[in-house]
């Protein structure tokens, strides 16, 4: 059996892949222009016609799609409005975004789209070593967020045995995983760590004793933050690998089992562009941060064409030993444009704080970052749960070391608010740890 889900497309030479992508890009642009009043309006307003796409460089002429564009939803045909590209009766499933960055977006899918979701995830899971011999536990509250639904269906397609851990609590999920000897599970990095904590504190079991062989993460950047990845891998004693997707986009990138130090883009199904942080200029040079803009080629009901995700990454200048020719985004998603902000005049990314906090094994609990104004001065505060059973002197020493590391990594002086262990919120889906309370933020 091939180690690639699709050996033809995963090893296609870069030049041929560009031809393949351009042909698919033209098809989807034709499709949305013909079917969606939203795209027609946008393209017409920009003076762009699908027939203008003659060469690769013309892609930059296609207007960007943003979350704001989805505001036309809620109208006829209800509830998708002008974004819908198929007759309403062809829609077989509804999901919506988590609403982390504003009003949730409604996402319709046809049955073929749903099969497409599974195909994207199957590509990812196969590359991460998921096989029919796996018994996969899904500690996921099945609901209107697409999240791990598609992972569930992809696992079935691959032939894994899927155990849906829906409405169970964390302790019950862990007990069921142990009882069934689950070999793998999927969760956000926060929940992977939270489950390990619950196993140790509630069940008095070292998570390594569960015998889990692999963990797939999504929803947060943690699995590609070295210190967070190490903490998860140390806790469970197995590889933890990342994947990135979005409801409006699909599951578009992944870390393969060769540990590429970043995310392979599924180039046969998506066009991923990087644009400058402060303009729409393309970023092709490796090592230069850019906004991730994505087109999903093969979705039908509501495909996205040049969707500005506002996530930030950079191209890597290396090939992966797995043999895939698909490009790599170095270190994955680094954060969001709207989270990368200036504090006291210094450019600050909350991901850096996670990297530092998680590099201290003593800090096993949660944390929050709060930026606010004190008069005219920015103030940055870290609310951090303290380890239990540590002498005051050792705790002081540890905190001083942490603050020094934070200062070194961010060039900012943090105020530390010591919190009791377990006092901050726990998250099963996307954690909300960064709060910018300054006016206009």
């Amino acid at each position, binding site marked *: 059996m*091939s180690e690639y889900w*699709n*050996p*033809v*497309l995963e*090893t296609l030479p870069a030049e041929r892949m560009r031809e*393949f992508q351009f*042909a*698919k890009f033209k*098809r*989807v642009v*034709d*499709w949305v222009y013909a079917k969606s009043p939203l795209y027609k309006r946008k393209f017409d307003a920009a003076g762009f016609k699908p027939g203008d796409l003659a060469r690769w460089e013309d892609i930059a002429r296609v207007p960007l799609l943003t979350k704001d564009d989805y505001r036309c939803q809620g109208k006829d045909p209800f509830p998708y409005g002008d974004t819908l590209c*198929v*007759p309403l009766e*062809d829609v077989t499933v509804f999901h919506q975004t988590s609403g982390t960055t504003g009003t949730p977006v409604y996402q319709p899918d*046809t*049955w*073929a*789209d*749903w*099969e*497409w979701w*599974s*195909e994207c995830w199957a590509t990812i899971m196969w590359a991460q070593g998921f096989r029919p011999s796996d018994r996969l536990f899904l500690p996921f509250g099945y609901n209107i967020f697409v999240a791990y639904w598609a992972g569930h269906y992809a696992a079935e397609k691959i032939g894994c045995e899927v155990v849906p851990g829906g409405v169970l609590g964390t302790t019950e999920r862990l007990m069921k995983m142990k009882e069934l000897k689950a070999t793998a599970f999927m969760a956000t990095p926060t929940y992977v760590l939270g489950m390990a904590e619950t196993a140790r504190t509630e069940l008095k079991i070292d998570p390594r004793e569960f015998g889990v062989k692999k963990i797939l993460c999504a929803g947060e950047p943690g699995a590609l933050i070295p210190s967070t990845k190490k903490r998860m891998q140390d806790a469970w004693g197995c590889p933890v690998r990342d994947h990135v997707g979005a409801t409006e986009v699909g599951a578009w990138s992944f870390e393969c089992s060769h540990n590429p130090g970043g995310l392979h883009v599924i180039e*046969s*199904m998506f066009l991923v562009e990087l644009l400058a942080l402060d303009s729409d200029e393309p970023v092709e040079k490796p090592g230069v941060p850019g906004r991730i803009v994505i087109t999903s*080629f*093969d979705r*039908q009901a509501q495909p996205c064409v040049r969707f500005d995700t506002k996530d930030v990454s950079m191209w890597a200048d290396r090939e992966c030993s797995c043999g895939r020719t698909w490009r790599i985004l170095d270190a994955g998603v680094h954060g969001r444009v709207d989270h990368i902000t200036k504090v006291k005049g210094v450019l600050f990314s909350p991901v850096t704080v996670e990297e530092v906090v998680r590099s201290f094994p003593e800090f096993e609990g949660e944390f929050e970052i709060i930026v606010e104004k004190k008069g005219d001065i920015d103030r940055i505060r870290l609310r951090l749960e303290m380890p239990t059973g540590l002498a005051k002197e050792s705790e002081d020493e540890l905190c001083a070391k942490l603050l020094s590391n934070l200062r070194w990594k961010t060039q900012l002086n943090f105020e530390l608010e010591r919190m009791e262990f377990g006092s901050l919120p726990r998250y099963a889906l996307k954690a909300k740890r960064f709060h910018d309370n300054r006016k206009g933020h």
Partner: protein
Amino acid sequence: MSADKAEKIAEAVRALAEGLDRLEKAGEGIPAVEKNVVRMRGTLRQLEVQFELPDLKRST
């Protein structure tokens, strides 16, 4: 994987699509046929978009 093999897969995918067209026509008006054809087309489409250029017109 050789281009030959990819082309053979593409040919087989096209033949399967024609077979589904025939099945749909034969079972017109019968939900058990029509609805299962929709499902099979969804799966087939994943092979079409990977081994041929996408034909969005035959999508729904």
